[in-house]
């Protein structure tokens, strides 16, 4: 598969379909990291393996697109996994990225492995255990929803009973939270947020968080103070979860990058479940369907 990815990348750079290909490459100490390839002779840097976990759609935001000051935003070729493709759909639907300036090299994904976690859980290096990430264990759709070329055999996807079981396990975690009293649930989340440093890695890694000035950092008006303390952290995480409601596609990058292991995957999973139950809606399946929280339908009866 990697040869096909490299060949396609070389082709679109040579014929100037794109100015830049964003994919994955080997890093230091066995890690894999995002790759930015600007010329055809560099495409051999690109790799494809089970450590390619980063959601590259996060690099398409206006403020993170690699661009020299004053130059126009580059046309980008993107090595695209299924989940990243769903994130891209959200960005397309929200008019954050022009589709015509992207060339999508879709790849059929076999799942990403859990990070090694020497100290924390965010090192981009596959764990020797070989276990898939929780989100990958539960994943049932491993072909990107849209692509310009597809690498890999869609028929070869391994979706099986284990995925159903993993979804069941995630559902169980959510049900355990449901079973707590409000006070107990608050204590659980406070325990998580206690460790939070407000480093904003979760926000920066998230494709859905692209505000040029985050509500959590705005000073005028000041919605939340600068304190790295429980009241502010509750506000930030709850607010971010709400801002992602109906938009989060469940890549769990937020949880992976957190240096102290806050269970953001669980928080966003809860919100996705609520959106599914209330609106029958799952984010990112296509780039055009109206999203529930930004669409007003006079005939809607939510039976809340």
């Amino acid at each position, binding site marked *: 598969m990697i040869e096909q990815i490299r060949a396609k990348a070389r082709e679109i750079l040579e014929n100037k379909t794109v100015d830049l290909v964003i994919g994955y490459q080997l890093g*230091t100490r066995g*890690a894999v990291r995002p790759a930015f390839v600007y010329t055809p002779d560099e495409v051999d840097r690109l790799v494809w393996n089970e450590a390619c976990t980063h959601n590259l759609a996060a690099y398409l935001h206006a403020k993170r697109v690699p661009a020299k000051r004053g130059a126009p935003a580059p046309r980008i070729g993107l090595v695209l996994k299924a989940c990243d493709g769903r994130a891209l759909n959200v960005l397309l639907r929200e008019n954050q990225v022009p589709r015509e300036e992207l060339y999508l090299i879709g790849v059929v994904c076999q799942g990403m492995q859990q990070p090694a976690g020497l*100290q924390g859980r965010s090192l981009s290096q596959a764990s020797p255990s070989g276990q898939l990430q929780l989100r990958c264990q539960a994943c049932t759709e491993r072909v990107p929803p849209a692509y310009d070329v597809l690498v890999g055999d869609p028929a070869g996807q391994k979706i099986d009973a284990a995925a159903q079981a993993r979804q069941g396990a995630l559902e169980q975690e959510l049900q355990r939270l449901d079973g707590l009293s409000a006070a107990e649930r608050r204590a659980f989340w406070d325990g998580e947020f206690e460790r939070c*440093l407000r*480093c904003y890695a979760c926000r920066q890694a998230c494709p859905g968080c692209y505000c040029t000035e985050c509500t959590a950092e705005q000073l005028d008006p000041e919605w939340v103070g600068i304190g790295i303390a429980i009241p502010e952290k509750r506000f930030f995480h709850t607010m971010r979860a709400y801002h992602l409601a109906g938009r989060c596609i469940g890549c769990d990058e937020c949880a992976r990058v957190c240096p102290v292991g806050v269970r953001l995957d669980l928080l966003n999973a809860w919100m996705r479940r609520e959106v599914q139950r209330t609106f029958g809606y799952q984010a990112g399946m296509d780039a055009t369907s109206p999203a529930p929280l930004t669409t007003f339908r006079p005939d809607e009866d939510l039976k809340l």
Partner: protein
Amino acid sequence: MTDFITHAQLRDWLAALGGTHTLIAPRQVTPELVVYQAVHSPDDIAFGFSRAALSPKEFFLPATEAILTVERVRQLAAGDGSAQPDWEVRLAEPGMERDQVVFGIRPCDAHALTALDALLLKDPADAYYARRRERTALIGLACQQMGATCFCTSLGFTPDDRQGMDVMLVATGDGYALDTLTDKGQAITAGLNPADYKGEPPAREWPPAEFKVPPRQVWTRLFKDPYWGELADRCLSCKICAYVCPTCRCFDVRDYTVAQTPAYQKIERLRCWDACMADGYRRIAGGHNPRPDKLERLRNRFYCKFDYYPADFGPLACVGCGRCIDHCPVNVDVTEVLDAVNARS
């Protein structure tokens, strides 16, 4: 003269210290995470830890700290009441309740405090950091081996270095070799009854340094090199590297009203961790931002550590702890940067 204490003696000693001091020690807070926390009993201590995910810097420079409290009290208006009410203003410096003891601080983190001293204790000294440093004793614990991302030996010291410690412990099979190094160390070991350490205290050979820190002139020459742009492409401008770093100290300051009635207002001036990596870090009122690009911010971080900080304050602002390598979600690896700078020198 080196002393010896058993593990049981260590536990008792720490329990006793916890009665009079805030005892800070490594604690397993999730199955994967050890951090330094104030603990209430030696049972909470993760004695077998290697390197905590975060340094104990937050006990010297807290993530959130009040640096001033202000009370405004409205005075009763004299006379006909048409005069604008006057407000009395009282300022207070927040206090520090107890002395602190940090158990299990590693040589890298102790070196980091010494590096921070060069800036924060420089005249005019940061009163709050100075007070915490003054009132905290450090019980160091030598490392048994270097971690996969550790590179302290490349910064000129070893994983069993004693610099900055008040008491130094080296684990032996059955207990600890203990050396009291300073007056503060004497004060906290006063109640301890150690035996003499029999034989030669343990010493280790460490592997040679793997990396070379380029001298300042090399960094200066490479400021406009395209390497920084290539490096910054994948940077997410999160603040993880700065927040886990034991020598990063940048902070933000803002006032908050914590109590208010028509005749009374209590305000806290808070300072909180901040990082030069953030987008709006240098944006001024009016909107101008002298570091709008990721490239400029990421480059500033490395230059601050290896060029500006030593130029202005003396020591390097890196101690080779490797936490930034562990935690960067996109594998921006400081040792790779050092190699790259050397290669281009």
